[in-house]
């Protein structure tokens, strides 16, 4: 690709793996996979441990991910576990980001993060609205951008662009 250049600062503001190592040590068997791309670290965790992991990452003194930047999902219809639910965390104290992922089956359902971060309220509603992901225990899980009587989950791959 032409002259060898690199996007400046790639990875400088992402967790360097210390939080994941700490997670493996303190909550064994919760980490299923760890990926690094362009300096960005993603940790794939066990579905059963979502709340434990998120609250550990938030409260642990070495992790301090006190800020929930975003919640979203990705649909991979050809995979055995077609849904990925993605939490993007940020630590003010350490100025580092970390992406947390869970892989889900055909009826995706994960626990809500509202008790940890009120910010999760609308983010989870949007994720539900677009992908049909059930956030168990969400105080008010209903469509947010689309009308109440809308049918289907538009960001799933089988949903057509036009119809």
């Amino acid at each position: 690709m032409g002259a060898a250049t690199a996007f400046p600062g790639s990875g400088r503001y992402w967790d360097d793996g210390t939080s994941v190592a700490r997670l493996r040590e303190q909550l064994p068997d919760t980490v299923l996979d760890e990926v690094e791309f362009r300096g960005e670290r993603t940790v794939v965790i066990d579905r059963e441990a979502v709340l434990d992991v998120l609250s550990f990452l938030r409260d642990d003194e070495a992790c301090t991910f006190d800020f929930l930047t975003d919640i979203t999902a990705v649909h991979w219809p050809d995979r055995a576990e077609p849904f990925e639910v993605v939490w993007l965390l940020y630590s003010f104290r350490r100025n580092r980001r970390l992406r947390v992922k869970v892989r889900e089956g055909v009826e995706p359902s994960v626990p809500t993060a509202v008790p940890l971060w009120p910010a999760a309220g609308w983010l989870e509603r949007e994720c539900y609205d677009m992908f049909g992901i059930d956030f168990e225990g969400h105080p008010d899980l209903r469509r947010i951008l689309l009308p109440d009587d809308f049918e289907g989950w538009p960001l799933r791959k089988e949903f057509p662009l036009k119809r």
Partner: protein
Amino acid sequence: MSESLRATSHGTGKETITINMGPSHPSTHGVLRLVLELDGEIVTACKADLGYLHRGFEKIAENKTWQQFMTWTDRMDYLAPASNNVGYILAVEKLLGLDVPARCKALRVILCELARVSAHFLWLGTHALDLGAATVFFYTFQQRELIYDLYEKWTGARLTTSTVRIGGLARDLPPGWTEDVKSYLKQVTAVIDECEGLLTRNRIWVDRTKDVGVISAEDAVAFALTGPPLRASGVEWDLRKAQPYLDYDRYEFEIPSGTVGDVYDRYLVRMEEMRQSVWILEQALQNLPEGPINTDAPKVVLPSKEKVLTSMEDLIHHFIIITEGIAAPEGEVYHAIEAPKGELGFYLVSDGGPAAYRCRIRPAAFVNLQAIEKMAIGQLIADVVAIIGSLDPVMGEVDR
């Protein structure tokens, strides 16, 4: 009204009425609809109903090439389109692992900071108008027009600027443009001062905004507020400082912050941000690097017309980029900028194809707006208007 939208009073036992504010109400800044439950004039519950401007941008992104989708971003926060363009393109460049020349970075900073000044002027004019201070509106809209003129001269468009390209920019500055901006900047500070003179110590303005819609620093973080609403609560955090992109670490500027986190603090923060942006613009123009605006990446950046007509290789590159789009590696990235409204992030997932497999837009305005359901409680209904203005939601970005 559907039952699910009916706000609840949490069992206070008082008789309340439920009213709609919006979606077509001049003070709700577009198509925001709030369902308010009132005990007299006091708001006891507030729920927002969104989506009146939903256009499915994230779905569209999956069906357009990487470059094509940039034009859609203009229509998100349509008060700062150039800033959205830059935010999106930076995420694509991160995915590609691409750096751009110093001149390009400086020009993008100019795009972003002009957008911030323009967006804040619109916020100020409408916010003041909502609270009955009509005069300010005329000053701010005139200033905004002048910025649009500058955009038009450079990019050919006033609103849909779409001038950022993967690996560079569509065009360099036209002759005399920097002089135009310099003379614009010379007069703008006086206008900001004049607006402040009309409001900052104005008794009515202070009464309407002080201690209204307060949110503590702790709550601001819990609600994931970013941008001016976060800083007004006392958290000095700005992505341009915390995670500098576009060489922002080479500019001198300060992050204004508040202490109380009320409507008044959010007002003061944005006013100071405009001055800081003017300062950044002056530095960018002063030290504008010479050199190319596009990075040397022939498989990504379109060649000049002259080269297409004279060189076989460039003709092929041009053909491939236009017909097939560029190939991005498999992987996923997140990149965020400090947009006028706060953290505007793009989470791009690529399966190696010419378009995003998934493009998640982390909208600052959407996340910030959520806090209104908390801020409005216990306030007068008239103050809800002040709170909406102080959160500066732009529904194009909230609904996407």
